[in-house]
């Protein structure tokens, strides 16, 4: 195999796939990237057996062929190369010679046959949607995924393809984020699946503003085809808990907040939230919210936020990190905060179908 390409193209290609590369030492082949050169482009594939990514870049292919090379090492070399033109020549024993300007590298690879193939998707359920919609949806929910490994069904994002919409749900038991994306889904293609965190993170990196993504769901597997790149992942086995149970009933009070102003105030006040209790208090009064935090023996902070509010006076406490996470990941100017009382969950909403349920913390008076 022999090809030459520009540094930018090669680097871009490697960047897309290299995050997946396994850190497990048990199977050396998994720390390698599969390179397949043919017909003016080189395909790159990496996998850790749970998540796999396949991308490509343009190149002048002199001799077709395939091999695998250590992904991290190749990436580090390419990044440091001085000249923009790079030539890669792989011999029959999978040793790659990399030439660029005055530099010469030789790295040893493993044969292509040892690389585990990405799974086939036959008889899969297929849905096509806009990349932008999916990316926004992931961004609005993925921060709420649980990292508690003992609740493994929560270590991923629920994709529920039902009733002509895709519902994305993430929860860790204290908060829940949910987004609906409208889609045409034929009855036969309906499915409820859980995509693991790693795949969600990678997918967010790959999705762009333009173009479509084809989602294929087969038993235990999911594939996201982004035209030039493909991401394949195992699904988390098990049933996602009935999240609808968490969503509270009708709200008593609603305030409209400017997202950025609210976020900045929270960020400032949270500097004095104690690490132990880690809570900040929202004190509602007529047309005003006081945001307060205090840590005994350290100090306290208070900030007033003028708002339109006519309900009764009351206080509610939240974990500041949990309250800021959705605000950071939304793009809307205005958000709505719905509350019932100081012991019931708060709900953050926007104009479009999005919902964030957050449990309050107990106020020690």
């Amino acid at each position, binding site marked *: 195999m022999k090809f030459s390409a520009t540094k930018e193209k090669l680097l871009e290609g490697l960047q897309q796939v290299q995050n997946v590369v396994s850190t497990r030492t048990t199977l050396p082949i998994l720390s390698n990237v599969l390179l397949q050169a043919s017909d003016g482009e080189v395909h790159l594939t990496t996998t850790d057996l749970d998540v796999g990514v396949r991308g490509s870049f343009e190149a002048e292919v002199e001799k077709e062929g395939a091999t695998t090379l250590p992904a991290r090492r190749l990436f580090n070399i390419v990044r440091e190369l001085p000249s923009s033109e790079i030539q890669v020549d792989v011999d029959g024993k999978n040793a790659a010679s990399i030439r660029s300007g005055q530099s010469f590298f030789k790295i040893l690879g493993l044969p292509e046959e040892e690389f585990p193939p990405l799974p086939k998707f036959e008889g899969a359920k297929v849905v096509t949607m806009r990349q932008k919609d999916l990316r926004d949806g992931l961004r609005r929910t993925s921060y709420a995924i649980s990292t508690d490994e*003992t609740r493994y069904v929560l270590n991923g994002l629920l994709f529920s393809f039902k009733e002509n919409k895709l519902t994305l749900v993430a929860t860790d038991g*204290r908060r829940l984020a949910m987004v609906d994306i409208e889609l045409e889904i034929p009855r036969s293609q309906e499915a409820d699946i859980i995509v693991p965190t790693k795949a969600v993170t990678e997918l967010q990196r790959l999705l762009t503003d333009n173009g479509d993504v084809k989602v294929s769901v087969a038993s235990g597997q999911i594939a996201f085809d982004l035209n030039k790149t493909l991401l394949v992942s195992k699904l988390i*086995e098990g*049933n996602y808990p009935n999240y609808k149970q968490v969503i509270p009933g009708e709200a008593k009070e609603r305030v409209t907040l400017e997202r950025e102003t609210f976020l900045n105030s929270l960020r400032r006040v949270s500097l004095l939230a104690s690490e132990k209790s880690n809570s900040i208090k929202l004190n509602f009064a007529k047309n005003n919210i006081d945001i307060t935090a205090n840590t005994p023996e350290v100090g306290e902070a208070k900030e007033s936020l003028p708002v339109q509010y006519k309900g009764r006076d009351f206080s509610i406490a939240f974990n500041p990190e949990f309250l800021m996470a959705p605000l950071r990941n939304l793009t809307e100017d205005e958000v709505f905060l719905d509350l019932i009382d100081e012991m*019931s969950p708060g709900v953050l909403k926007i104009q479009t179908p999005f919902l964030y349920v957050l449990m309050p913390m107990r106020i020690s008076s």
Partner: protein
Amino acid sequence: MDEKCTQLWQKLSAALKPQVSADTFKRWFSAVELVGATDKTLSFRVPNNIYQYWIESNHMAALQAAILIAFGDPREIKFISSESPIEVSETIDVSRKSDSGRDTKPTSSSSLGLNPRNTFESFVIGPNNEIAHAASLAVAQAPARTYNPLFIYGGVGLGKTHLMQAIGQYVLAKKKNMKVIYLSSELFINEFIDAIQHNNLVKFRKRYRQADLLCIDDIQFLGGKERSQEEFFHTFNTLFDGHKQIVLSSDRPASEIANLEHRLVSRFEWGLTAELQPPAIETRLAILRKKARGMQIKLPDETFEFLANRIRSNVRRLEGALMRVASFASLSGKQLTGEVIEHLLKDILQEEARTSITIEQIQRRVAEHFDVRLADMTSKRRPASIAFPRQVAMYLARELTKSSLNEIGDAFGGRDHGTVLHACKTVKKRMKEQDNIRQTISFIDSSLQR
């Protein structure tokens, strides 16, 4: 829900209502059922696992407080989800077929040599084994996150194998896609030899180095097997670096395994070392009662007490004796009196008696350890190099035998009881002050009890 639980639940709900908002109570607790209540634990059945997650994350403090109000003391809380997990296993099989890279044989617990009776539920916890039990449970709940490696040691028949198998089964039940390997070190050695003979070491390595949980029982048999140790050393490192859980058991602390390489010893001591000690009388009674319930046999309390009193060293023997008494009772239908049982268990009781330690054994062992002559134990000479070992021997004699101070004094060359008392005090004091002395004495102690 039976009567008792209904009543308890009513009491508990009344205490819980003021703790949480009305909406919360209606939403989360109205569908909860109390299905089991003991002095220590309460089991709640929830419609599906979101209830468990949400209550655990948000309402545990309120629930605990309510329990305290309603019953006066804290209880352990357990949740049972009524969603059947069977649906899940079906989808697993399908996905396994389409799985490409991995060894995908579905692992059932019996094919791993795990005895389904050895679970955490059937393990009787007492002060002698609570650390080992807690550590094992922690490891089972979050493999490779807490204690890695976990090293369990203790004498014969105290539950090492039970705990290890319980970990294996717990992990298999909770995380179906984890690869669990359980075997004895003897089997490991045999397979290794076999692999060398048939020249398929690669396959051998692959098998063990891809495990997510590796449990090796009776690791002390690795002592003296150099090549096996080396192979195991590499397996250990690979798994450890890959953040895989390793659980080992042995009949003695790692540092006391003869002919075990230092690098292995230090690795074994890396994580958590938990000791299993012989159960105290209360624990022995609890074990007997639990066993009897499990085997559905009824015996009078005196019988339980007799067995628990007379058989001290070993749980397995305790169970054997129970079995023998129970089968005798059911086969002959005779009344179980003390004499009948004594006769029935003659051989076991004799064996128990023989394991009791004599003063002479202690003297010999101590003399050997401090490299003084046995005669010095009883002689009148008292340079420090002899006097201290003698005091240690007296102390141990006091701790390990039932002899009176006078008897001990006599056995040490006709000393009076005051001397013995003084020796015990001195040794205790020095044990408190000096670590190395405490270690030496506990080492001699454990080697005597073996």
